[in-house]
């Protein structure tokens, strides 16, 4: 009996030992898996952005572009995020929404910009979406929702327009799972603090919006988990951080941009 137990333990050790030793080899690099994943993500980003371009007009207002660019550039620079990776698109839509697409495409609707009471609120939402990009949530969500095979066939061009449209809808109007949303919220606060942007207005934004969750236009809110709960944990996480905060764009610049947006509406 003892002999059999000893031999059994040895076999188990042999298996796990082999696994452990083989795991020390960088197979992902050897098989170029990272590069292949990046190529897939790049193709998906282009496909989805092409679909979105057709659904709404891209805002070309210089003031809007400069303001959003300033906020995103500042967040990226202070957090060591490669700015070249982020592609910002402002679409003229009344919905209060922002979302990330594969390959760093960040879509912001003008509705969100004009409804943000201050730049910190908008920066909070942008940081939340940047967090989804940084934490690779976009690809995770796509694979989780539509599967690896469908994602692969979209990039190879064998999937029809309907599937692509459905997948696009999924990315723009449905939330990530609760765990990923919380991860993105916490990361968003970290990004804001690092960029010296006060994260409290982001929590306020969620509280404010939680009263309006039934309103159809608040897409970003209605598709995300309970806003009040999110506001609570964001606020309690903010308390652990104390820093001197500043504004990225001047108050005049922010006001002027909002005025121009309202005029164009």
């Amino acid at each position, binding site marked *: 009996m003892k002999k*059999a137990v000893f*031999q059994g333990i040895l076999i188990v050790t042999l*298996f796990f030992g082999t*696994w452990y030793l083989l795991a*020390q080899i960088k197979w992902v690099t050897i*098989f170029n898996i990272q590069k292949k*994943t990046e190529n897939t993500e790049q193709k998906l980003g282009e496909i989805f952005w092409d679909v979105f371009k057709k659904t709404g007009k891209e805002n070309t207002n210089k003031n809007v572009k400069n303001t959003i660019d300033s906020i995103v550039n500042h967040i990226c620079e202070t957090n060591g995020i490669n700015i070249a990776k982020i592609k910002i698109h402002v679409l003229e839509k009344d919905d209060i929404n922002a979302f990330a697409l594969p390959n760093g495409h960040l879509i912001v609707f003008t509705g969100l910009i004009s409804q943000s009471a201050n730049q910190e609120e908008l920066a909070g939402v942008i940081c939340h979406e940047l967090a989804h990009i940084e934490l690779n949530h976009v690809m995770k*969500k796509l694979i989780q929702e539509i599967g*690896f095979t469908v994602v692969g066939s979209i990039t190879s061009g064998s999937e029809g327009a309907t599937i692509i449209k459905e997948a696009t809808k999924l990315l723009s109007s449905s939330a990530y799972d609760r765990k990923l949303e919380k991860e993105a919220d916490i990361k968003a606060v970290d990004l804001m603090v690092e960029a010296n942007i006060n994260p409290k207005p982001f929590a306020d934004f969620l509280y404010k919006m939680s009263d309006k969750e039934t309103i159809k236009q608040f897409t970003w809110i209605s598709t995300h988990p309970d806003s009040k709960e999110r506001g609570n944990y964001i606020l309690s996480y903010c308390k652990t951080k104390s820093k001197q905060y500043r504004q990225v764009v001047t108050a005049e610049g922010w006001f002027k941009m909002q005025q121009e947006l309202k005029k164009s509406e």
Partner: protein
Amino acid sequence: MIQSNNFRYSPGEHEAETASSSYLMSLIAIIVGAPLPILNLLATIIFYLSNRKSTYFVRWHCTQALLSQLSMLIINSFGFWWTVSIVFTAETISNEYIAYMISAIAFNIVEFIATLYTAVQTRKGKHIEWWFYGGLTNILCKESR
């Protein structure tokens, strides 16, 4: 790893054929290309159950074949569900996953060769005891039954 020992008695032609078939059962699923790891075990279990009242030599080899399949089932099931989670969920291909699959394939190849060798030798009436599984079979399979 594999030892050819003398059995307590010399098995007859029919016994050797049935005992050899118990190993072949576990190979059938591989030969037909069934991707589910459970099928190998199912084939071996069915064969084991249908021969549980057979002679000691047959029962002994059916038990060894079944035990070896059980451990392969654990290894293969883990690899199978890991692959499924990569294909259908957010799980990604990692160094650990590739290392696991290589280890699992290596163990499967060793087990396949050992099974094939044992099937051939048992057919000749030789008693083949595997390392660990042979000892375990000796504990579980008693002649007095």
